[in-house]
């Protein structure tokens, strides 16, 4: 298992490297630069800006220095300074030596702000939203799926799956504003927009206070975001459970005269969880990175918008940062799922 994980992590590194090359070349191939704006800047200013961010270097030099800043650990005697050029994700002090790693560079759009700042301030909020949405998806999806499977081809089956599919069919773009309208403005039950957590975060990503207020703010966006995924979960649960309850060992359990309830909860459910677990990784990755629309509608200061706006603004370091983050996230999520999967299904052993 250990060797397997190490191999996967090494492999992740290769994926990241290839993705970084492709992204780098693509973003520089797209017309329109980061300093193009409606009120055109004088050529001299553009030249200075390019100089400032080293965009006047040959592309391969830019790429290699990016790799150097991000991937290669820096060993130095000078302590970190507040400069925007000197912002590393990891700063370790061993004796007099500083080990510093992962400088994703400055954001062109926000002077003095770095990609690491965005990761530190905005990513935790998207992660919180993603976790909440995943919870919503599981809390709605699994019971619906189980109900539908146990009552296959009955009215309850159709009702359950119908409800789940409605969830996936109504786009957040419509669902969000309607929810704000009903619960935020008409009934005034929930705050229409906003997120009740802000930096600094506990352990780097958790809200420092977690109470009713947090839930109040999180409720509408998590439901809007998670509802679509609940259909995926419901359908998977249903299919998996249907398959499991036809397996021999369930028949054996039945023939042993075990209570139907015991059979379902103790034997069938566990095994039908496996396919559900396999999608959790990609689903969570999609939820965290697919928050653009939800964040825009509910005014959540998360990371989701940077996946889109960095590209529309040609904010090169932010594009690189977000896409590499996405890649790492996806690969890691899949890895965790695979490990969990082995744990749930003793037949699977890696290596």
């Amino acid at each position: 298992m250990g060797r397997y994980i190490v191999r996967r992590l090494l492999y992740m590194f290769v994926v990241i490297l290839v993705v970084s090359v492709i992204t780098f070349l693509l973003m520089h191939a797209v017309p329109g630069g980061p300093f193009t704006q409606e009120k055109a800047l004088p050529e001299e200013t553009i030249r200075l800006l390019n100089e400032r961010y080293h965009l006047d270097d040959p592309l391969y030099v830019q790429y290699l220095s990016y790799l150097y800043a991000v991937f290669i650990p820096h060993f130095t005697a000078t302590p970190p300074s507040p400069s925007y050029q000197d912002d590393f994700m990891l700063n370790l002090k061993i004796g007099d030596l500083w080990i510093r790693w992962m400088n994703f560079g400055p954001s062109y759009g926000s002077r003095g702000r770095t990609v690491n700042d965005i990761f530190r301030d905005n990513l935790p909020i998207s992660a919180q939203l993603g976790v909440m949405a995943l919870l919503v998806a599981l809390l709605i999806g699994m019971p619906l799926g189980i109900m539908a499977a146990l009552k296959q081809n009955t009215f309850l089956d159709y009702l359950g799956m119908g409800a789940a599919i409605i969830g996936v069919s109504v786009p957040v773009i419509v669902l969000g504003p309607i929810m704000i309208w009903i619960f935020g403005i008409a009934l005034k039950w929930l705050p229409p927009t906003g997120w009740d957590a802000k930096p600094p975060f506990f352990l780097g990503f958790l809200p420092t206070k977690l109470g009713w207020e947090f839930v109040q703010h999180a409720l509408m966006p998590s439901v809007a975001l998670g509802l679509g995924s609940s259909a995926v979960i419901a359908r998977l649960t249903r299919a998996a459970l249907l398959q499991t309850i036809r397996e021999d060992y369930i028949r054996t359990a039945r023939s042993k005269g075990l209570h139907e309830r015991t059979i379902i909860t103790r034997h069938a459910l566990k095994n039908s969880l496996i396919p559900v677990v396999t999608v959790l990784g990609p689903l969570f990755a999609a939820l965290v990175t697919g928050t653009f629309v939800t964040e825009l509608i509910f005014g959540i200061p998360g990371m989701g918008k940077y996946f889109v706006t960095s590209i529309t603004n040609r904010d090169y370091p932010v594009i690189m940062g977000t896409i590499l983050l996405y890649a790492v996230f996806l690969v890691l999520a899949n890895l965790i799922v695979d490990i969990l999967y082995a744990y749930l299904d003793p037949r699977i052993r890696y290596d």
Partner: protein
Amino acid sequence: MHKNFQALSLLVMLSLILAACAPATAPAANAPAATEPSVPEATQPLAATEPSVPAGPKVLITNFLSGDVATLDPAVSQDVNSTQIAQEAFIGMTNLNEVTNLVEPGMATSWDVVNNDDGSQTITLHLRNDVPWVRWNGAEVETVKTCDGSAARIVNANDFAYGIYRNQLPANASPYAYLLGFVLKGASDFSTGKTDDFSTVGVKVIDDFTLEMTFIDQVAYNLEIAGLWVALAQPKWIIEGDCDGAVQARGERWIEPGFFQSYGPFTLKEWVHDDYISIVKNPFWPGTEEIPQPKLDEVVFHMLDEPAQLAEYEAGNADMVSSPPLSDLDRIKADPVLSKELSVSPQFCTYYYGFNTKAPVVNDVRVRRALSMAVDRQSLIDNVTKGGQEPAQWFARPGLAGSPTMADHPDLGIKYDPEAAKAELQSYLDEKGVTADSLDLSLMYNTSTGHQAIAEAIQQMWKDVLGVNVKLVNQEFRVYLDTVQSKNTPQIWRLGWCLDYPDANNFDRENNAVNGSQNPAENGEPYGGFNWKNEEYERLVLAAAKESDPAKRVELYAQAEEIAIVDDAIMIPLYWYTNLDLTKPYVVRTYSSDGKESFEKWDILPH
């Protein structure tokens, strides 16, 4: 079995379990509950005051558009949100009244203007000596002390000279360095790196409270530019470090809360990126006739998309929001409450369609004029843009210094005139022997619902009036901006222009003239944008800039506009912008025309 369920729940609930163990109280530096009036009191045990009690702090909740404020560093600011904060946190040597757009005393109480024989102009500014630098220390606003801690640092002429220096420093690559570069002696050479000697720039500290500025030309807008955000005092000690290292050099990151220092009526309290900015009253601001001590204790700017802003406003969580979504205007105008809270005030921007005057078909002025006269601007405003905008007859909006007004020049420029439009086009068609529907015309705009609606409406008008089929092409924003300034500028394109300083020069010369923003040129020959050169126009806008008699300036600009809009018809001016605001009735306010509000003049009445 149970173990396995735990494994699953571990994956999804890890954060919640951990969070439950988290400390329940927020760090001391965080905002008190007053910034979020929707918050129930019970969940905020630390809150000291209740927002609705009249004696409590007066907190105004308003909004910026979605997306983080680009910077709070005035030296490198360029967008309206950044300069809005700069407007409140720093005061220029001169001040532009946000309503009348006239120059009035700011940090300088008076100034002497001397016209030199070589055509340059020297302005000596006498500054106040009673304004200290302040910062928010997490609990209250305090003055910034000198190195020995004995006294407050007082804003002085060196701080202003340093502010101009930072704005012009090539390493900072400030987007608006060119504003001073145009007018301030030697600034352009310094900011483009031709010299690294700042003493060659026309800024001289005479004494602690006297600054002398030398301008290239004797033009009307020198004093306006001296008061802009590009020439504000800046705290050198926090940016470059001071007191033998006791004050750490923050570089460009001095603008974060806790480090940010300023001296205006408000100073920065909190900045939660992408979420909100709050500015708090500076009790050390002395208060002047023009810039009084604020009555508000705090102003909070949330960063929200327009529909979200409106939702917060209607839920009672915001006191003022701008630009409600267009389609909601019908409902707002019919609503007995909201309609009374809606205000329309002029905004100094012009929306226009430009022509590439060298592109096929539109290289004939008759076609351009016909297209321009065929647009029913009032119908466009009533049916599409809806914000009570004014139909534009020319480019430099009335209200700018030097601009003609509708009252004194009712017939200047171009108007909707379908018959004349048809006649112009017919004369072209007859000459070329072609039919209107065979003309190959395309209009390009950047992808956006608003621009699309306008383009679609105008496409229809052209079809109805002239019978031409204009093709609509859209491009993603940045690609588009590259295209409309390239050698391949499309036949017809859209753009808008907003003021930097309230003078017609900022419009007529800086956008349209050769080498202007939308008329890029190489060696004096335009190659893109309008792709247009008219010697008479160039002469007129230059003469108008240097003219000192306001009435003569208006006449010169009127002649220039007539050339650009009618004789050569290089653009179709469509409308002059308006600000649409929704303000709660208990807010006492002023209405700014340059997009930056002066909150020190606002108040919240007990309600």
